């Protein structure tokens, strides 16, 4: 299964999000075309009610532990309750540009 599909299915099954966007941002990074290494996930779910950010991120990290141990190199997480999401005008922050990371370090 594609990593992107796996991420979507795991989050849907466990958090029943009212909004979910999984963006493959690998194309912005120093990896071969078609890679599934850098993802941005925006999840809006009632499950986050009363949970601080670090707890929400831990839930998602745990759901995606298998992917994070393997294919995923970067995972940006944006987690909101439905009311926080509407306060944000239904937009999450854009990911930063790639600066080369370990590959640049190695090639220097």
């Amino acid at each position, binding site marked *: 299964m594609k990593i992107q599909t796996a991420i979507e299915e795991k989050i849907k099954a466990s958090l029943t999000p009212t909004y979910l966007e999984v963006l493959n941002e690998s194309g912005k990074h120093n990896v071969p075309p078609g890679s599934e290494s850098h993802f941005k996930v925006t999840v809006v779910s009632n499950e986050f009610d009363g949970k601080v950010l670090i707890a929400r991120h*831990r839930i998602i990290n745990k759901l995606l532990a298998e992917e994070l141990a393997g294919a995923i190199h970067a995972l940006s997480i944006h987690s909101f309750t439905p009311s926080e999401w509407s306060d944000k005008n239904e937009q999450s922050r854009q990911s*930063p540009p790639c600066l*080369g990371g370990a590959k640049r370090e190695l090639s220097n």
Partner: protein
Amino acid sequence: MDVLDRIKEQVESNPVIVYMKGTPQMPQCGFSMRTTEALKKCGHEFAYVNVLMDPEIFQNLPRYADWPTFPQVYINGELIGGCDITLEMAEKGELQTMIEQAASK
């Protein structure tokens, strides 16, 4: 010293420390860059470890606080999160408050 003891010593002896790719002057990852920008704006000194230069920490930090990605920010010995959480807290003014409290200890 065992690597986990080394990490423990670092996070407990520095009020604010970030484990990052590159340095605050020359970050090598966009997420590390944004995180240190947010920390710099708080106006207090912070410590950093360049995980690209320390393979042992790079390998083992994820299991120290059960957090799989970099960067990681610790305040008063506690993991506060990675880039997304640091920026979110900075936006709400919470990061500044936490850092000021940590610096005054």
